[in-house]
């Protein structure tokens, strides 16, 4: 009877998660959706505490207090620019929790004599593999985003062979363990191999490919939760985990499409491990570009009818989101229409730019997706590209030799004037020279984005 009650309560929690996610379909209802989902979680937790025969209360309380305190501190102190790291870390804890639960369940079976029914045996091994892989992969992703580990793609000889051998070895371990569950050393070897695979599979992925990796790890963390559901025979966990797994997969797919690359290419391509020589694959010889002063740029902006701002990771790096809003406010006060063009892979995670700009109080109806804004570019007087590079490279449209070829881009070059704010002429993440910089209607505005915006603000006031 109590099992029936608790299972109904878990079902209710899962239904609330679905309703919560449904409300995320609009920014107006999203916040209440998050509340609905957290209510679902509260119901699930209370049900477990009441109906699952909890005997060891001190342990539970210690765990809850430690976890909540750390979670709360993270949530309150993280800056919007550091959100990708935060999400990477959360993914990791989710995966880690699943792996640890599976280990605890394994320890219980071993303690009880080592007999594990086949269905639970399979679930435990899979949970261990996905959980630890998610954990160590996320920790590396966090390290890369936090710049504790190099953001570039790290490659070593026989990379793919090593991963393939490791994966095959793990498969053999899983099969052996399902047949002979009481082999503890093999179980520990499987755990270690999963941790190693997580590290090795994220290390070769470069910084700008992080949106794909974080989405994929997000999906894994959901799948890990689902696997825990199989381990403890709980449909609520399976449903909730599957929702997250699906969400991560959708995002992964969107990110890959936005870069016109397959998932396999992102995971194994080691994109951005080398920097191409400027002009390589092109016409060769010196190309000339124009740079302009902040005063000239300010005049151009102040007398424009429509300005489109295309932000990239550089905006986050220089924390320029407030300065850009201030400039936009000034321009709007002068009657200029200001719109923001958001490329799906701008920044280090899906929606990164939107959150940054929202933090600076930019209303979300001024943010436009690539498909919405591109048709407007020819009618735009000035486009301002700030800290974005590969996502605005026109070579992606026509240069079949370019690694970026086929990637959908923001058509900032189609505006009457294109201003590119950049620190130097260094190529972007893909290591490809950007032909946008050398177009006749492009002007370079050199300097740190935040400083440049401050100078532009002063200059616009003078106009």
């Amino acid at each position: 009877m109590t099992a029936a009650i608790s299972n109904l309560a878990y079902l209710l929690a899962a239904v609330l998660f679905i309703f919560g996610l449904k409300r995320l379909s609009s920014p107006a209802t999203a916040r209440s959706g998050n509340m609905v989902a957290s209510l679902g979680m509260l119901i699930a937790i209370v049900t477990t505490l009441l109906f699952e025969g909890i005997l060891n209360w001190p342990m539970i309380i210690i765990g809850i207090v430690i976890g909540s305190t750390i979670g709360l501190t993270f949530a309150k102190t993280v800056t919007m620019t550091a959100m990708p790291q935060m999400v990477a870390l959360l993914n990791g804890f989710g995966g880690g929790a699943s792996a640890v639960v599976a280990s605890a369940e394994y320890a219980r079976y071993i303690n009880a004599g080592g007999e594990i029914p086949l269905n639970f045996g399979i679930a435990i091994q899979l949970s261990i593999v996905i959980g630890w892989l998610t954990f160590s992969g996320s920790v590396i992703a966090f390290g890369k985003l936090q710049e504790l580990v190099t953001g570039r793609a790290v490659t070593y000889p026989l990379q793919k062979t090593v991963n393939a051998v490791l994966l095959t070895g793990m498969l053999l371990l899983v099969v052996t363990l399902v047949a002979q569950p009481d082999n503890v050393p093999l179980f520990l070897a499987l755990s270690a191999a999963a941790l190693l695979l997580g590290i090795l599979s994220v290390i070769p992925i470069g910084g700008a490919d992080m949106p794909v990796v974080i989405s994929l790890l997000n999906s894994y963390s959901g799948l890990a939760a689902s696997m825990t559901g199989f381990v403890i025979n709980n449909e609520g966990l399976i449903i909730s985990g599957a929702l997250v797994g699906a969400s991560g997969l959708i995002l992964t797919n969107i990110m890959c499409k936005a870069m016109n690359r397959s998932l396999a290419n992102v995971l194994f391509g080691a994109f951005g491990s080398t920097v191409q020589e400027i002009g390589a694959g092109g016409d060769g010889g010196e190309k000339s570009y124009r740079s302009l002063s902040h005063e000239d740029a300010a005049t151009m902006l102040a007398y424009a009818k429509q300005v489109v701002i295309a932000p990239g990771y550089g905006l986050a790096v220089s924390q320029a989101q407030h300065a850009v809003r201030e400039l936009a406010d000034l321009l709007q006060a002068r009657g200029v229409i200001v719109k923001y063009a958001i490329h799906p892979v701008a920044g280090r995670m899906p929606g990164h730019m939107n959150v940054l700009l929202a933090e600076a109080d930019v209303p979300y109806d001024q943010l436009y997706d690539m498909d919405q804004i591109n048709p407007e570019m020819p009618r735009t007087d000035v486009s301002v590209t700030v800290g974005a590079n590969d996502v605005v490279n026109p070579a992606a449209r026509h240069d079949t030799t370019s690694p970026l070829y086929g990637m959908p881009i923001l058509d900032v070059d189609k505006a009457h004037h294109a201003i590119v704010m950049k620190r130097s002429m260094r190529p972007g993440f893909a290591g490809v020279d950007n032909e946008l910089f050398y177009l006749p209607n492009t002007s370079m505005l050199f300097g740190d984005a935040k400083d440049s915006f401050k100078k532009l603000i002063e200059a616009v006031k003078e106009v």
Partner: protein
Amino acid sequence: MIEELVGLLVVFVLAIFVGFEVITKVPPTLHTPLMSGSNAISGITIIGALIMAGRSDTRIGSILGVIAVAFAMINVVGGFMVTDRMLHMFKRKPEEQR
């Protein structure tokens, strides 16, 4: 045993389809809150963690249980709170500000 596993597999596959249907409708502007929010949902592992920590049959089991509870709670509390913080910032019209 295997019948049980297949039954759960049915639930799993159907839930993935529900997930696809619901999440396809989330606009790109909310993709970061979607990730952190769904992350909090994957903290549902807390159920398993609480059950493990609440048993008192083996020492190793309850130690692992506490670690799992702490990990999952970071996920749940951190995920929901940070999502709320982000969503609070999404505003519509300039008039509504300040």
